């Protein structure tokens, strides 16, 4: 079992030692080299984290939570990111787990929470539809009652990692009367159910993150609805506060900072190191100053939460700034690599046997840079975050 200490520096050292010993080398290499980790690689890592009590330390104690403080959890995530561990699937561990712990009935908790906490179950989130992106209230996938089942018909899109998922939590329309948000229910769907088709969507980055999920007369037991019928909107909105702090993505930013420095120190333009060129230095320092400011700002929210304060809409600013900063680092990395960043081997990217990159640092920089565009779109686009801050914080 992994035991955190109050001394955060000592804790960070322990996390580094843990990552060195436990992070599977193939997974570390995949993350480091920008290849898409497989489900099997990730499950192996989840199981090791679970065995050390470090997969869901933020959950309620009853379901495997460990009572780590927010600074301990943040430090843990950060050190793993710096050790080239993959970002954990937040849909599974940060969203559906805590949502079930809070809103699920006893049978649902018993059925799902231990499975998720073991690291072996993977979830995806069926929210977006072809005509409902950020505006979820207009979603059209419908569920009609047939005895003790719902019959679900419709299509979901941009469903991240549906190809890996065992289960999907899904917003469906169960009523057409009243306000658009009022007729939505939150149901849990077994991805092995008859009538489900998953169509992977290859991204401009070459990874399969997104999928379309078609639901054709899928029968879902009513017992798999979470909360009351037509009250699913409340659940969908309830991203827990710790998860919102995580969205500053300090660790993911620091990982990219390290890569940018590595690119600057190892690449040359003529007889000069990139790290000695004025444009690189100015941009690196500009981004680093932003990162230091983001960290100070996140620390302020962490302290407020630790003091028992409710964090309001203001915390949206962390997601807005952290996600944009990741993109700026990726752009700097591509610029530092210059023409070295141009080749991209699809076979290498897909992890095919025998494929080898000519240049492990540069080989997938282009892919990562495209991948990073997703951070300002998913989970409430930056424009939505601006709207939230304008209305709820500035009162405009």
């Amino acid at each position, binding site marked *: 079992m992994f035991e955190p200490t109050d001394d955060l520096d000592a804790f960070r050292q322990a996390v580094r030692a843990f990552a060195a010993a436990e992070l599977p080398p193939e997974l570390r290499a995949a993350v480091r080299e920008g290849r898409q980790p497989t489900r099997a690689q990730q499950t192996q890592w989840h199981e090791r984290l679970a065995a050390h009590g470090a997969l869901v330390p933020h959950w309620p104690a009853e379901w495997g939570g460990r009572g780590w403080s927010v600074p301990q959890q943040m430090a843990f995530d950060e050190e793993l990111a710096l050790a080239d561990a993959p970002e954990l699937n937040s849909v599974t561990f940060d969203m559906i787990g805590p949502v079930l712990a809070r809103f699920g009935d006893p049978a649902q908790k018993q059925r799902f929470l231990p499975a998720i906490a073991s690291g072996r179950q993977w979830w995806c989130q069926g929210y977006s539809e072809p005509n409902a992106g950020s505006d979820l209230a207009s979603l059209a996938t419908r569920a009609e009652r047939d005895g003790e089942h719902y019959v679900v018909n419709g299509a979901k899109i941009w469903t991240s990692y549906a190809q890996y998922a065992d289960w999907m939590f899904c917003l469906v329309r169960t009523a057409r009367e009243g306000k658009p948000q009022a007729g939505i229910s939150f149901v849990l769907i077994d991805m092995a159910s008859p009538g489900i088709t998953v169509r992977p969507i290859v991204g401009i980055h070459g990874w399969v993150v997104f999928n379309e999920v078609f639901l054709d007369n899928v029968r879902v037991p009513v017992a798999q609805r979470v909360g009351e019928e037509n009250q699913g909107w409340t659940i969908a909105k309830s991203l827990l506060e710790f998860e919102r702090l995580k969205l500053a993505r300090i660790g993911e930013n620091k990982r990219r900072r390290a890569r940018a420095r590595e690119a600057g120190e190892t690449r040359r333009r003529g007889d000069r190191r990139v790290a000695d060129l004025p444009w690189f230095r100015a941009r690196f*320092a500009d981004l680093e100053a932003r990162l230091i400011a983001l960290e100070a700002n996140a620390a302020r929210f962490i302290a407020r939460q630790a003091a028992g304060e409710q964090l309001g809409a203001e915390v949206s600013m962390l997601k807005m700034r952290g996600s944009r900063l990741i993109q700026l680092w990726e752009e700097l990395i591509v610029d530092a690599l210059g023409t070295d960043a141009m080749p991209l081997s699809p076979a290498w990217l897909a992890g095919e046997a025998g494929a080898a990159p000519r240049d492990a640092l540069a080989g997938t920089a282009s892919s990562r840079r495209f991948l990073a565009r997703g951070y300002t779109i998913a989970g409430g686009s930056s424009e939505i975050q601006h709207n939230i801050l304008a209305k709820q914080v500035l009162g405009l």
Partner: protein
Amino acid sequence: MTALTDEQRMLMESAQRWCERANTAPQRRAVAEHPTGCPPERWRELGDMGWLGIALPEADGGLGAGLLAQCLLAETLGRGLLMEPYVASVALGSALMAEVADGELRADWLPALADGTRRVVWAAWEPGGDAEPSPPRTQATRQGDMWRLTGVKSWTPGAGGADALLVAAQMPQEPAAIGLFLVETAASGVTLDSQRLYDDSYAARVEFSNAPARLLRAAPSSEMLALLARVLDRGRVVHGAQTLGTAQTAFEITRDYLRTRRQFGHALSDNQVLQHRLVDLYVELQEAHALCLAAAQDPQPRLVAALGTRCAEVARHVWEEAVQLHGAIGMTEEYVLGAYVRRLALAADLYGTGPDCSERLAELSLGAAS
């Protein structure tokens, strides 16, 4: 960052009330028209409030309240657009004096600095020199018990009207030693070329020609430069706090204007494009403020360099957007915003420009460029 204490809150409230009462636009104009930009009677009033000695030890007549309290005060004074050279005199001059003076000189000067009867600034910069403390070109020579200085220091905010200057000079026959001296401005051989700056504050180039000086401390070059850098960094944090206070007010003026001003039948702030631009300013200010308080609690070079980089960027972004979002009225001198715009534009370049701070941060992370 923990919540403010009652004492800190009271300090900020009293500074805010003082600004509302004693630092209105006509009063600020009067300060700007004063030949030195720092009328002595008003300076003593600041001393009576306890603000000039806030970070000085209690044994020296100060409040011993530390850098964080000083930053909160400076932020409030920045919000109210204090014209007097607070950072130059208190956060740099008095702070350096407290660092190096001892014995009779200390007993003689520090209580007077704390109560505002005297004012000292640090002539820190070499002409055409680095933003960081660098080996001085001013030369010190010894004449019996007295020291004499000869040389030039670059633009020094608040020097006009100061009672004395702190000056680093090269020690004679000891190329690796720097002396820090106290030079009274009324002494023979001291020439101040004091100029009004574009934000209505004042700075002076200073020339010493065999000027009499008292030695406060002599030390090996690297040791003295490290000491000076430490004091300068702490002063920069206070300057950052004051600048961010000013930027916050400029932001609030702009936000309120957009809420009030109506065009095409609705308030300007109903336009989403304008809302988002206000949000960007708000978020940048919040982040920079968090960074400033972190640096106040731990003024290490990396945080100070990051703060300087962000403050310069944010100050510039705020004033440029404030003008643009107001439209033509934002470019007028008579409207309240104008004085804030001029102050922010200047503050962004003071005590190290944004690019200076950014290159320093690059050096800390990437090493010196070869």
